[in-house]
Structures are given as C-alpha cells and as structure tokens.
C-alpha cells in the first residue's frame, strides 16, 4: 500500500517547511574576515606531559596573526594542525610559532613527540 497523493504532498510540505526554517536561521550571520592588526598571543608551558594553562580554545579572526610561544621541559616539537606549521622545542627554552590565520575552522595545536594537546585555535 503506497501513501496516497495527499499524504505525500503533506510530507513534501513538511519537508519544505523544515528546509525553509533551517535556511532561515542562517540569515543575518556574517563570516566576513575582520582585520585585527594585533596578533593573538598564546604562551604555554609543558611540564611532565601537562600543558599550563589548561588546554582550551583560543579565538582568532580570519586574517589575524597568531603567535604561539611554547616552553617544554623535554625536547619536542610543536605543531599546528591544518596550517601545518610548527617549531622545534629545545628543553627548557621558549620557542615561537607565528603565522597568519587565513583559513577558518578549528585547529588543534599539539606537541609532536608526546602528543600533548595545547589548545584549539578557533578561526572565524
């Protein structure tokens, strides 16, 4: 037994309403790149496999510079996923990664050897 034409139409209307309503929520938001001249600065210290401050999210505007300074107690490497940039971390000495956040999205910043998640960079 197939759905009658009326039922089908009702289902089609319902689907349409859903799509329209969802589309409607998208109006009014913008994702224009905003020019923020000051770079985003993040400083992290890694001791015995733990990041300080505790890992969280760091916001950046699309197009903004990001400067990450990491000090690790053991030799390691820091890596920014997605942007695929990084820096060697000699033990006990701060090292800096700097780049322009020109892609939107959520990117993990992690150490390479010990796989410690330092923070997530949120670019929008």
């Amino acid at each position, binding site marked *: 037994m197939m759905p009658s034409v009326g039922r089908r139409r009702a289902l089609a209307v319902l689907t349409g309403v859903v799509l329209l309503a969802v589309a409607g*929520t998208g109006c009014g938001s913008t*994702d224009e790149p905003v020019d923020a001249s000051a770079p985003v600065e993040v400083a992290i210290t890694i001791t015995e496999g733990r990041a300080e401050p505790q890992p*969280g999210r760091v916001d950046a505007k699309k197009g903004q510079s990001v400067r990450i300074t990491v000090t690790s107690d053991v030799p390691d490497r820091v890596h920014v996923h997605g942007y695929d940039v990084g820096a060697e971390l000699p033990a006990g000495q701060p090292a800096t990664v700097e780049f322009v956040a020109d892609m939107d999205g959520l990117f993990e910043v992690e150490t390479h050897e010990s796989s410690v998640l330092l923070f997530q960079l949120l670019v929008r």
Partner: protein
Amino acid sequence: MRTVPELLAHGVGGRQDLPIPFAYAVTGAALALVISFVVLGAFWREPRLGDAEAGRPVPARVARLLDSAGWQWALRCLGLVFAGYFAIGLFFGPDVDRNPTAGLFYVLFWVGLVPASLLFGPVWRALNPLRTAYLLGAALIRRDPRRGLRALPARLGYWPAAFGLLAFVWLELVAPERATVPVIRTWLVAYALLMLVGAAVFGVGFFDRGDAFEVYSDLVGRLAVVGRRDDGVLVWRNPLEGMSGLAPAPGLTAVVVVLLGSTLFDSLSNAPAWFRFVQNTQLPAVFTNTVGMLVLIGLVLAAYGLTCLLAAKLAPGVRPVDVAAEIAHCIVPIAVGYVLAHYYSLLVLEGQRTIALLSDPLATGDANWLGTADWSVSAALVTPTGVAMLQVTLIVLGHLLGTVLSHDRALVLFPGRSAVTAQVPLLVLMVGYTVAGLLLLFAG
C-alpha cells in the same frame, strides 16, 4: 625560534568544523520536536510501509544487465583494481603524510561510502575485494562458494559486523598513530584475514552480515531510491520502503548503536571539557578515550533499551525484545544524518587532498600517475555558515525519516489504541539522539 613547514603531520584532517551557532542547535532541536508531534498526531493510522510489492521495477533491459554475471564480475574487477591501487601505498609507500593511504581509507572509502551508498545502494557488496578474493579462491579449488565447512548459525546475525565496526571506529577515533601507514596496514591485514577465515568456515554468505563495511553500506544503501525487493526484483522506490524492509536480526541493534555512539564520541572528544579531562586524569589517553567511547556507546544503548522497556509496558502483549528488534531501522537515518553532518567538510576538503595525493602513491614527490598531483584544495563548498546550515538540515532530515519509520512500525507492532501511546517513548528517544547530536555539534 623559527616557524617551519611540517613534513610529517599526524592525523587525517587537520582542520575541523567550527562549532555550530547556538541558535542553529536550538532551531534544529525545536524542529525535531515539532516533527515528532506532527508525525505522531496528524498522519496515517494504518501502516503504509512494508508492502512486498512496493516500488516500480526498473526497465527489464536495465535489470537484465545489472543482474547479469558479466556486470557483477565487472564491478568485482573494479573493486580489485581499487584495492590493488590502494595496496601500492599501503604496502610499498613510505610512512609520510604525502602517502595517500590514510586519506583513502578514512576519507574516500569510509566517509565516501555513505554518499555512494545513498546514491546507488549497497555498493560495497558489489565491489568488496575480499568477497571477490574468496570467490576466486573457491573457484580455484573447485568448491561451491556458498558452502563453508559448516552452516552459518542464524543467531550469529550481525554480531561479527558489530564487532568489526567497533574495531574500526576504535582504530579511526582512538588508536594511537592511527593515521600512520603501519597501523592501518596491520589493522587491515588482520581484518582481511578474519573475513576470509569467516567466509571459508561459513561460506560466502558470511560477508552479508559479517563484513562491517558491507553491512554499513547496506544499511545506508537502503535509503537509496533504487533497491532490490525481497523477491529479488530491482525497483525504484521510496527510500522509506527500503529502510522499512530491513529485517530484524541478532546484532542489528548493536551495529546501529555502535555507529551512532562512536560518531557522537568523535564530537565529544573534540570538546575542551573532554580533552582537559583526558589530560588531567594522568592515565594514558588511549585508555581514557577507549573508555569514553565505550561509555558513550553504552549510553546510546541504555537509552535504547529503556525506551523499548517503556514502550512494551504501554502496549499489552508486546515484549521489550520485540520492540528492540523492530525499531533498529528507525535509528539508521538519524545516524546517517549525523554521520553526513559530521564528516561533510572532511570529505570535501580531505577528499580533494587525497585525490591529489593519489597520483603519487609512493610519495616520491614527482610522480603524477593520474594527472591530479597539481590539484589544489578548494574550500568553496565549505563556508562556516553553509556547513552549519547543512549540518542542522541533515540532522533534522534524518530525524524526520526516523520518526516517520517509527510511527509506521508502531502501527504494526502495537495493538489498537496503544499504537499512539506506546510510540511516545520511541519519539522521545529519537528527539534525545537528535538533540544530543546537535548539542555536540555546538559544543564540539
């Protein structure tokens, strides 16, 4: 003190989606609720799905071609060609991020299997190189491929696929070094051996419900507009007919629950609260993440079980196990909607990157076998607003299909007036899954 480009990234998909705006999550949740009430109250009172004659047969000539041994073997050869190409990077390529193996396996194959199955039905059943290898082996020793050493026990059902799927999602989401070639190689060799042994023992029918990837492709493929009816006829049909025709079998619920639970875990593990917790427990991350994934799958299962108990209580003469077996298919569209929402941008971006890498499977740096080596990744289809909108739409559509399926099945399953009351727990369950998915897209 210098910024250097990295040569060896670990992990597939360096970029993840931005969290969806809260307003989107709320709108999606509200729509899910409205849909549930509308479906519960306003629509049909007699079951409309499950007709053995449903669908319009495809033209006889097309059906003859698609059913012919020649066509089936052509597809199997195509599957062997794909597998052979994949094997170049897998067995002979260096373990660097320019090796296309991880992208091929996790993105083009695993994620790509969903849209491919939605369009064409259970494609992996037709292509599966393991099935073909077994068929060729059986032909070589002149053995009937359908007959194994013993009969396939009915109570085995989908359980091998459920465990295979669990093993895969653990590899994909939890395993250390999971995007490296040796890890993928080890996992795949073990998986292939297990499947071939299973087929040798139980015959070729083992793949039908034992191979996780075939089962996954079959579940998703039931939502395709073309499908094979129980009587074997190829038909154009309402996707809901295909989904409704999924026969209950042992382990089916487990497959669906693992699928939904693991994808929810993938979102959860991305939330700051979770990774802070992982770092603070001081236990190995692989342990905490494994437990986390199992707990989330367990929660999805517990909600399912509780719902079935409640529904059975409200319907005289219906056992909870029957409810559990009969509503598993309603969860599939919800899981599929969530999986598509979750992986859309990964498929678009990493898919393009993988196709470019495919031209150089040995990662020599100068090969261009397929002419795609110079492709650059276009993000035109992945704007934050567009992705967020698509994600909510897919999740809400999955919810819509799930509730329609559950309403229809409730009319069959629950006697008389209890059909309405007993399906309330089912709707609550689906709203719960959908809202959980939306919240995780917001928080993850």
